[in-house]
């Protein structure tokens, strides 16, 4: 096969604008989903370790239910499954106000929240039990102990695995194209449709994802150094 490379398709015509729009949508949906995932993750991760049985059971149910169903299914669930439960007028309103974006955001956030929850729980479990007992001895309630002592320490411990999963979240946002969210992967395919230059378009998408992820990883590496707790993490080298 004689494949003729034509890299100019990436900056001629509307390609540049499309890539930029796709990038913005990817960053928006990922950022919002990340906030949701972090909130759900911290909440349910903490609840899985508290001394109340019902709270633990609820959090366990959330984690197992949402992480064990494929993300694609969740996308369809939030886009096709949830709206029919709402009154017709509400449905029409949300369909006119980018229902697909919000459905994709919820699918991504709730799914990754379940994964984040496990990371947080691992962080909490790695804190010596005496830490919690000391907090109680200071006269804090269980809630205060978690809010002021346990969770802040756990968050400082879990930066590397949390970064890992955050990058996964960013890349998984591409699944939202199945429910017509015009994110970055969608736009690279669009360029391919218009120009029939698949390799160039996919390379552009790949490089943008890479730069984005490497950039985030670099920032998180700084955060990790800045917030590492001396004495709690064994440093190699």
């Amino acid at each position, binding site marked *: *096969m*004689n*494949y003729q490379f034509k890299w100019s398709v990436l900056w001629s015509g509307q390609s540049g604008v499309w890539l930029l729009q796709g990038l913005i949508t990817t960053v928006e949906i990922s950022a919002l989903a990340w906030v949701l995932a972090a909130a759900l993750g911290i909440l349910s991760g903490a609840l899985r370790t508290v001394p109340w049985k019902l709270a633990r059971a609820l959090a366990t149910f959330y984690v197992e239910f949402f992480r064990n169903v494929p993300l694609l299914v969740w996308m369809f669930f939030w*886009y*096709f499954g949830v*709206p*029919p439960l709402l009154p017709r007028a509400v*449905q*029409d309103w949300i*369909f*006119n106000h980018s*229902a*697909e974006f919000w459905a994709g955001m919820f699918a991504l956030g709730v799914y990754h929240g379940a994964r984040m929850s496990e990371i947080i729980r691992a962080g909490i479990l790695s804190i010596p039990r005496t830490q919690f007992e000391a907090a109680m001895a200071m006269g804090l309630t269980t809630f205060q102990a978690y809010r002021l002592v346990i969770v802040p320490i756990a968050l400082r411990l879990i930066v590397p695995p949390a970064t890992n999963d955050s990058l996964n979240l960013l890349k998984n946002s591409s699944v939202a*194209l*199945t*429910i*017509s969210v*015009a994110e970055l992967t*969608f736009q690279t*395919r*669009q360029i*391919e*449709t*218009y*120009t*029939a*230059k*698949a*390799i*160039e378009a*996919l*390379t552009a998408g*790949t*490089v943008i994802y*890479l*730069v984005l992820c*490497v950039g985030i990883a*670099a920032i998180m590496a700084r955060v990790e150094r800045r917030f590492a707790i001396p004495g709690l993490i064994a440093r190699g080298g």
Partner: protein
Amino acid sequence: MKRMLSVVVAVGLALSLASPAGAQQDTLAKVKDSGVLTIGTRTGSPPFAYINKNNEWVGFSIDLVEMLVKPEVQKAVGKPIKVEKKESTPPTRIPLLSSNAVDLIAGTMTDTPQRREAVDFSLTFFYTGAQFLVKKGSPIKSVNDLAGKRVAAQQGSTNAKILREKYPQAQLREFPDQPAAFQALLQGQVDTYTNDGIQLYGLKAKAPKPDEWDVVGDFYSEEPYGMAMRKGDAKFKAAVDAGLKNGFESGKYFEIYETWFGPKGELPYPMTPQVKAYLLKQIGK
């Protein structure tokens, strides 16, 4: 950071340059070696190519390959071959072809000048145009009624492209395949679904309650369907075209048409004299 970036760019370039290397040029030689002609086709586009009630992968486009193209390819390679089917969708079909994963796209692909820069097309084997599928009584009657309406289309299709360029007042929602787009129409996520008229008739016929749906509007695009193959493979293209040409000449093509689109076919859709003349004109008749 700077050094990291250059590594990233280098890896990207290396990947992109590596992929087409070692690609096979001659499809007939490849088919002769393997004894298999791999076609890329659809799974949800009745009656061209779809999975039927008995879970069989069938359709008009598939029959054309099996009954017209296959004998001609067998003649060219001098031995019996098998036809294998792989799923291809509008966004994946050109990459599947370029990467040698399939040898021939035989589904519902429109022959356009732009696509001809990337792939070669066979003779046209079907002719249709884009229309709209709507719920009965919908205010949408044609392409001029789309202002503010939510319109589903397939990603990578010619229809989506025309709407985006010429009718920006519509809210375009693009889905990767027909079942998802149709589901969105069924549930009201979108007000209408646009695709080639014949496919919409196919969907309507397969819908739970066909009477609730209408196909409306004049053709706002011309969609001649062709089979696509890798560019510049003259020998293979000659074999595919010869198969279709024989079909037009012997009338076999029209028999196959009758089984799918005739009064007793999967989807009754009588061939208009204009379409018949268009098809026959390709072989100089």
